[in-house]
């Protein structure tokens, strides 16, 4: 573990990723302290350029809201969506992948056909359908994003389980008379987890992007200050007041970059074939 941390710390790109993610985290934590007012409240005249009014360093959006306040509060929303959706996707994916990979046979075939059925559907279209049916409350949106993101996690987990279940230490535990649940959770899963954790960073990045895409189509929850909502609002005024969309766009770019670099760094740090040398 210490060796992995050291490997991570030696990787400048991974460090940059961690710094970016910590920055976004800091913005989210500081939001209620720096901007105690409702970020969706009317703050001033709409569409003031960044810097034009010292009260609004990043200007105001078409609804007269402070973009800076929305950016800080939006960090919480985006991270929350990212974390929760990733948790949902990982929980489903690991459960299905573990069972399929561990038991094999017809269980595997059945579960993998279901997974493939989900994989063949473009996940954004599936998300649109879910939101159209169940509404666009932020909780619904977050869970829906998790629900469309699990198939790759399931396949990855299954592949790890397939290779690990025949190893000697698993067989040894089995000979000792330990049950399937114990074998899956205590013996195989801890060894299968590192690549899944790395992949979770990809899921998180995609989750944040999916919410932004929904909001861009004005289909996300308009009652929370998410970055995607701000981009969607700015779409109408893109030709003149481009900063309304550009500012949250840069925020999303940096967050995704941070999460991805962190994931890459984790991958390198946790992979014994790279760290060992």
């Amino acid at each position, binding site marked *: 573990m210490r060796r992995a941390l050291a490997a991570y710390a030696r990787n400048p790109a991974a460090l940059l990723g961690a710094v970016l993610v910590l920055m976004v985290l800091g913005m989210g934590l500081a939001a209620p302290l720096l901007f105690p007012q409702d970020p*969706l409240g009317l703050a001033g005249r709409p569409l003031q350029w960044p810097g034009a009014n010292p009260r609004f360093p990043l200007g105001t959006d078409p*609804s*007269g809201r402070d973009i800076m306040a929305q950016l800080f509060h939006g960090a919480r929303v985006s991270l929350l969506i990212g974390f929760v959706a990733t948790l949902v996707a990982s929980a489903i994916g690991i459960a299905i992948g573990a069972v399929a990979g561990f038991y094999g046979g017809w269980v595997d075939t059945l579960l993998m056909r279901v997974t493939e059925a989900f994989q063949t559907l473009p996940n954004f279209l599936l998300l649109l359908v879910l939101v159209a049916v169940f509404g666009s409350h932020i909780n619904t949106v977050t869970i829906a994003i998790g629900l469309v993101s699990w198939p790759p996690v399931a396949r990855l987990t299954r592949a790890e389980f397939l290779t690990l279940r025949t190893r000697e230490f698993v067989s040894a535990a089995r000979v000792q008379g330990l049950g399937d649940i114990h074998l899956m959770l205590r013996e195989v899963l801890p060894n299968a987890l590192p690549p899944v954790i790395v992949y979770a960073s990809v899921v998180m990045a995609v989750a944040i992007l999916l919410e932004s895409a929904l909001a861009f189509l004005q289909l996300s929850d*308009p*009652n929370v200050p998410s970055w995607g909502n701000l981009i969607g609002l700015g779409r*109408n005024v893109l030709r003149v007041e481009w900063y309304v969309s550009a500012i949250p766009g840069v925020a999303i770019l940096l967050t995704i970059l941070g999460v991805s670099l962190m994931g890459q760094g984790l991958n390198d740090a946790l992979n014994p074939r790279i760290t060992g040398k």
Partner: protein
Amino acid sequence: MNRRETFLLAGSSLVALPAIAQETPRRGGVMTVHFATEQRILNPSLQASTGVYIVGGKIQEALVDLDAAGNPTPVLAESWESSPDGKTITFKLRAGVTWHDGKPFTSADVAFTAMEMWKKILNYGTTLQLYLTAVDTPDPLTAVFRYERPMPLGLLLRALPDLGYISPKHIYETGDIRQNPANTAPIGTGPFRFVQYERGQFIIAERNPNYWRPNLPYLDRVVWRVVGDRAAAAAQMEAGQILFSPYSALAISDLQRLGRDPRFEVTTRGNEGNARTNTLEFNFRNPILADIRVRQALAHALNIPFFIENFLGPFAKPGTGPIPSVSTDYYPAGMPQYPFDAARANRLLDEAGHRRGAGGARFSLRLHPAPWGEDISLFATFIQQSLSQVGVRVEIVRLDAAGWLRTIYNDHNFDLASGWHQYRSDPAVSTTVWYRSGSPVGAPWTNQWGWSDPTIDQIIDNAATELDVGRRRALYADFVRRAQTELPLWMPIEQIFVSVFNRRLRNVGNNPRWASSSWHDTWLAS
């Protein structure tokens, strides 16, 4: 300041018009039109909607249209007269008019369209023609409308430019009218005949060589380009790929930008007959909103002049009730109003028993904004922001067009809704249905609030059959007073649609419903 300039530019173009009118019209050219929302049907005898008129109004014609001064002018009807009791109205029809497929236009077409389409299917038409019992056709060029109750001639003539389009009987008499293939490939008598509709892309119509107005139209073709994205439509205007964008379809910021560009004219001219008001609709099935003090408080909590000045610009002004100020005949002055007064709003809410609880909140409401119009979306956000100041939490719920209409007007599953009410020349056409009880469940843009008031029903019925113009005016003043007192819904903003013209277009905006009219005299300078 920029908005002022736009307004001045729009005004100065009016002064420049007479000079343009002296030019000799040029034949030929293709007029390209921005078509923002696709329609399921294009036949204006079956659906009264600006999205249908913008296409179908060039292909099919009505009995009458409006002239430059807004008075009824003959089209397919050459003259009309009413019997003294107002129950019989006789139209003399134009001779020598043929349908695009070569068949002659006769009174049988008028009788068929009136009885089978206007009375049974056409929205607003079913209400307007409720008491129409028969259309007699003594000869091919005479149509006699018989009513059970008096029909004011003025009301009928003001309604017919929108609700008086004629369809060919020989095309529609067999089969289900709603499923007729001509609904998306219309056959009419108008200056342009239908060529092709490619869904999601374009509609094409070409010059009708047998048009009854000699040597018209000037244009070779009209092409409607389907462009849903506002920013893309503005870019196509600038590239000259679209010459006309009707009905406020561009973003407000783009309207202001194009207004400063000498190549374009951004104006409300030609849309005077299409005034619309923004609505705030209350659901009386929610006991909180059934309390008049709460409705009044919500109205007092909104600073409408501030919203208009900062968000909508010069093309909007505060509304004073369901009849907008462009209605010179029926606009009543001095009606009850709800000016911005947050203190009063707070007091009214306290009196209604909704004291502030934890965090200063009194209660929560859902608000469903209609998914068309940038101003509706902005207004919804403004309502949310303003009501939070008086302790009312508002959750905005966004739906697509079909879902919104179903949720509000069929399922009644809302607290507040906001959209547009369109005023069409006379309050009886499309305004009083928002207040009259008894509309079938699911009929959009009608009273579906769970509110029923015998007093206003009586006023509306009396006004619709009153022949004396002075007495009708007095009845509509009573109607507005009652509507503003009971406040089943509120219409606080009045807007005229904005058109964007490429200045190469001539003879545009020369009647109060120009975007809907036939464009027979429109031409394109080289």
